[in-house]
């Protein structure tokens, strides 16, 4: 009986990387853009998608992927629109991964832009490349104005950071400027937007961003 040590150097994220590249290749070949929308439960991700479809549904052909642990509520909300929508129930997983997206991506071969709502949390979704072109992280002021500082990694790796529900800032005593500064401190190249999806304040910045993507 003797002890053996096998030295390995196996990349355990390789499979996700491979499938993300496959997704990216598909998108590129078809000339489709995809946005991975991350953020906590209740930050406003589904409402952002709804308002985007309302505002741009006539000029841009959208597809929507909705990641959720089990709940079908978001799917019911988006089904009302005339767009292709694929819900992904992640089961035990608290994030989407490239494999799950790979299963449904073929459906969207004729759209201009895929909006992907990731599972609601500010932690692990950032570790999983889906093959998307842009990463958007949405937070609301009701999560507390220290939420950006507490989750630096997801903001560091985002292209767009949205601070939502700003009309409620006063009521919850959240300092919007602090949130913006925290975001810039960790990621100075990201576009930082503040908005309120109920009042519509600041929403045109997002609409302009989306329009520019597909042009």
């Amino acid at each position, binding site marked *: 009986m003797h002890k053996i040590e096998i030295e390995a*150097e196996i990349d355990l994220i390789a499979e996700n990387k491979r499938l993300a590249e496959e997704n990216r290749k598909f998108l590129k070949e078809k000339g489709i853009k995809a946005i991975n929308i991350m953020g906590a439960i209740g930050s406003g991700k589904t409402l952002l998608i709804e308002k985007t479809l309302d505002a741009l549904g006539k000029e841009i052909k959208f597809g929507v992927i909705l990641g959720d642990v089990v709940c079908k509520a978001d799917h019911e909300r988006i089904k009302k629109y005339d767009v292709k929508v694929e819900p992904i129930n992640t089961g035990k997983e608290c994030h989407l991964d490239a494999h799950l997206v790979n299963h449904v991506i073929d459906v969207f071969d004729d759209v201009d832009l895929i909006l992907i709502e990731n599972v609601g949390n500010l932690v692990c979704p950032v570790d999983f490349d889906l093959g998307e072109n842009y990463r958007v992280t949405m937070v609301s002021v009701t999560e507390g104005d220290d939420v950006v500082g507490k989750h630096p*990694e997801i903001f560091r790796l985002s292209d767009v950071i949205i601070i939502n529900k700003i009309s409620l800032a006063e009521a919850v005593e959240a300092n919007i400027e602090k949130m913006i500064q925290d975001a810039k401190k960790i990621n100075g190249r990201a576009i930082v937007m503040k908005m309120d999806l109920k009042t519509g304040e600041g929403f045109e910045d997002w609409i302009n961003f989306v329009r520019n993507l597909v042009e």
Partner: protein
Amino acid sequence: MSFAMAIVENALKMAEEKNLKRIESITVKIGELLLINPEQLKFCYQAASSGTMLEGTELKIEFERAEISCVSCGKKFKTPIYLCDSCGGFVSVQGGKNFVLKKIEARNGI
């Protein structure tokens, strides 16, 4: 859970290739910037390995440090930041995002 599954699948494959009989431990290296919780990973590993030849083996976890330093003055940082607080230069972040199966310890023979 998917990380734990990846460990189990890859370790089992390796065990078969190398014809390992009794595995004692698996060592993985986690990038410190990944948001994997080590305790949770160990727990998930137990669940994912149960019913396989890895059941009851120890999961050893090492960390891969990230190199975080200012590209202008070279100042090093413990956590990522966009601009250097000394000189205002860009701070580069290298590594800290890998997740690797490093080592399998086993016993073979009679």
